[in-house]
């Protein structure tokens, strides 16, 4: 399968990428790792006229201890996040989740920025950054802005990014303990049928993969935890108010059940990591 024709440009800097993007934002797409965009282009579900390859823009691949938070460059590949010492020590959830994405070949190419900007509810990293109460930094022709993860995921393949903006950094709170990630899939290398990222230290936050048209929080569980419920009772409310989809892997009803099971496991596991 060959993508429809497009013009390819390789950007040497964020400024250059933004310049090209602003020429015709609606038919121009950024290409990072290409592991969400190229499959769509091969199926001709995406047919951008111009592809701006940001894959080699220098200075956007890092995981940095920034005092009260950890800063991650948008072009950091899943593999680099997985093995980052800083991530492993301060946000082990993120390093762990990066290691659960797809397979090694996918992790050698895919980037955290691409994963978040793609806005797929079946993706793992969006749930992790939502549970970690992340701030996403976007640059664009109107300057830089910071977007809370809570406001970022808007719908199926839809985020708060404007078509002429580029995600450049992700900032997450440190959570060395009190975390867990549960992913249930039927085949190795696959997306989650349902997944759960939980961070209990501070205000407990529980984010869900594939439980709706976008990455979202298990508000029922969070409320129950805040009110002092034990893991089993809190997990029973994991699917409260949620409407997951049915597909060939699972019915909506099965997903709702799975969410309660996986959230319970995640809460128990997260409590155990506190030692």
């Amino acid at each position, binding site marked *: *399968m*060959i*993508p*429809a*024709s*497009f*013009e*390819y440009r*390789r950007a040497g800097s964020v400024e250059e990428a933004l310049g090209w993007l602003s020429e015709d934002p609606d038919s121009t797409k950024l*290409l990072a790792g*290409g*592991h969400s965009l*190229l*499959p769509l*282009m*091969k199926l001709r579900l995406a047919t951008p006229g111009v*592809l701006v*390859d940001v*894959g080699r823009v220098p200075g956007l691949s890092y995981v940095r201890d920034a005092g009260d938070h950890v800063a991650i460059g948008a072009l950091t590949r899943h*593999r680099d996040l997985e093995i980052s010492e800083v991530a492993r020590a301060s946000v082990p959830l993120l390093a762990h989740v990066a290691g659960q994405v*797809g*397979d*090694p*070949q*996918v992790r*050698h*190419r895919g980037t955290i920025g691409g994963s978040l900007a793609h806005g797929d509810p079946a993706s793992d990293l969006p749930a992790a950054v939502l549970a970690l109460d992340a701030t996403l930094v976007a640059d664009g022709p109107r300057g830089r802005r910071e977007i809370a993860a809570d406001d970022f995921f808007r719908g199926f393949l839809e985020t708060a990014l404007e078509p002429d903006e580029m995600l450049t950094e992700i900032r997450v709170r440190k959570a060395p303990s009190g975390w867990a990630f549960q992913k249930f899939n039927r085949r*190795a*290398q696959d997306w989650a049928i349902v997944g759960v990222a939980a961070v209990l230290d501070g205000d407990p936050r529980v984010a869900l993969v594939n439980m709706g048209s976008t990455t979202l929080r298990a508000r029922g569980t969070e409320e129950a935890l805040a009110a002092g419920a034990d893991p089993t009772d809190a997990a029973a409310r994991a699917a409260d108010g949620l409407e997951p989809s049915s597909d060939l892997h699972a019915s909506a009803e099965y997903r709702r059940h799975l969410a309660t099971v996986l959230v319970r496991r995640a809460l128990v596991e997260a409590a155990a990591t506190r030692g």
Partner: protein
Amino acid sequence: MRVTVTVNGTTETHDVEARMLLVQYLREVRGLTGTNIGCDTTSCGACTVLLDGESVKSCTLLAAQADGEEITTIEGMAAPDGTLHPIQEAFHQHHGLQCGFCTPGMVMAVASLLKEHPDPSEAEVREGLEGNLCRCTGYHNIVQAVLSAAHSGELVP
């Protein structure tokens, strides 16, 4: 557009369409047909090659993205005199293939895996090869081959 790619140590420049996939480039432009196209959807790993030493699925990269980079394909594994690479030799010894369709991708994935995990456990081998499907062997002999290659002491990083 013009792309200059080093494949198995040989650098060439060609005019290609921007939409040309790396696997097409390797097979059709460079004539290296050892790299197979299986699923064409990033699932099976038959198209796995090394990009700067790391395994990637060449059906999901543009040739343009490999411009200026170093690619290693299965053709670059054996020595010029035909002596098999230790990973290939281990697949041979342990019957790690039947029809052989998945084998080029498997060998390249293993090369990358052993670079990252020089002394892998069996579980690490199985997980490390989750991006490569084999419809024939049941994986058992592939895993044995990888463990034996890792412990052969012949692998130069």
